[in-house]
């Protein structure tokens, strides 16, 4: 196995190479990373915070390897950080916070708040149209951050059915909102 010689792990050249690697990682993947994180956190700002923390963690690890390997790992690290944040924060969601969207600075006027509130009312109504298990799965996944595997156990159904429920629920909401928007246009 190993000889009596000490193992050479870190060389000055290696750490410089690592910084270059990180820089490439950032330029090639940051946008996708933010997009990915936005499926798991509530705001773009939070996505950026999580991404930043992920880069910091990557820098602290003694890893080496191709950017293609590291980019995959970057997404993993970021996903784990997002999970931890949500876990610590608990699953309480304050609807008012969501209505005020910090990512759209122009959208802070009363009309925007009214529009978002109206949309939420519609969303609540359209969610009631979902079949019971589908609705329950959607609530569990969206409001309680439960994983599809856990939801499947809880409802006694297959995991692929849970996945299908989430897809169908989103598709239904989108379609109904579009209809409602079109109906409003007709009224004007």
């Amino acid at each position, binding site marked *: 196995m*190993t000889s009596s010689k*000490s193992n050479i792990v870190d060389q000055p050249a290696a750490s410089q190479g690592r910084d270059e690697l990180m820089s490439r990682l950032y330029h090639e993947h940051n946008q996708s990373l933010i997009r990915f994180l936005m499926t798991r956190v509530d705001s773009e700002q939070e996505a950026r915070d999580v991404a930043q923390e992920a880069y910091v963690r990557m820098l602290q690890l003694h890893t080496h390897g191709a950017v293609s390997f590291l980019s995959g790992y970057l997404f993993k690290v970021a996903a784990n950080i997002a999970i931890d944040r949500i*876990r610590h924060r608990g699953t309480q969601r304050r609807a008012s916070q969501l209505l005020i969207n910090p990512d759209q600075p122009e959208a802070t006027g009363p009309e925007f708040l009214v529009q978002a509130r109206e949309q939420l009312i519609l*969303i609540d109504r359209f969610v009631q*149209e979902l079949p*019971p298990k589908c609705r329950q799965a959607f609530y569990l996944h969206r409001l309680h951050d439960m994983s599809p595997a856990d939801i499947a156990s809880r409802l006694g159904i297959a995991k692929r*059915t849970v996945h299908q429920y989430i*897809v169908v629920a989103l598709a239904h909401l989108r*379609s109904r909102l579009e209809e409602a928007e079109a109906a409003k246009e007709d009224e004007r």
Partner: protein
Amino acid sequence: MISNDRWMEAADWIARLRDPAATQADIADWLRWCASSPQNQDAFDQMQSLWRLTGGMQEKSVTLEELLADDYVGQVSVREWTTSKQPMSQPKAAVEQDDGGKRIAARTGSCPRTRRIVRRAALAASAAAALVGTLWFAVKEYREHERRDLIVETHVGTNRDLVLADGSAVTLGAGSRLSTRFVTGERNIYLEGGEAYFRVKRDPHRPFVVHAFDATFTAVGTAFNVRAEQGIVRVTVTEGVVDAHTSTADRIRLEAGHEVTVTRTKAEPRIVAVNTAQATGWLNGTLRFVDEPLSSVIATANRYARAPITLSDESLGEYHFTGTISTSNVDEWLLALPDVFPVSIDYENGRSWLIQPRVSQAESQSAR
């Protein structure tokens, strides 16, 4: 105009990316899909906005009756399902719709009311079975002497809380398996692998006996932790008293704040005083190890790891590890392992981790 199919794809991607089981291959596929058309990107961003908006939903609880009566599995759109549920005054002619591959079943002229009554009767009969089905466990029957009332198995990565038939509470660790057999004079629990924390409901007429490998642990009304991995059982008592019986010792009385480790060897089981909060840290996502063989550490970590970890060499398992692993960040712990032991970590075809002995730079160069 974004087509219906594209909306469905975008929704599918949101669901896939949000799944904790999403792999790096999934993310790579998603990136390729986004890059293949600006409309894909656009559809995804819009679905994303909708997703975020739904965070403000007001949850209205779904009743058990509703859940039991529900037969929808997502094969058709919600609209079509809703239409098929409408009470019909006249029977409709057979109808088949083709909508992107989805169809509703052809309807004949039979009276819909009769169909619904028959259905309700069938539902009532299956309600009991369905109720069991909507809880977390499956009931199986083995041969008589291996008969079990209850078998529970948990997925990798998730702990599970359950209440047993006598009211005792159990938290079962990830990747673990437990079964029970309650008879008149005894409550038998079999921890077939993994880890569990028991809060035993007091019943002096029926001792609570946990079986793990060759040992048994008997409690009357206590709280204790049992870990069974690779032939080694470790029991930590947090409240009350537990009596241990092993193949080498008649009876070992274990009090709160103490822990016994039973191995498959002939050696006397070791008893130590411990910090019980650390032993039960896994309930809150922290795995704690004190001077533990790496093989055992990896076996436990694998119950929480997103991708399986293997040692390329059995001898690596003999390194002793002291420290903690966060159950949500096993990969990170793994990648930092080369700082502690002379190993290197390889990620094999995006599916599993391999720990290998580390070859130094100098050695690999001289080998060329």
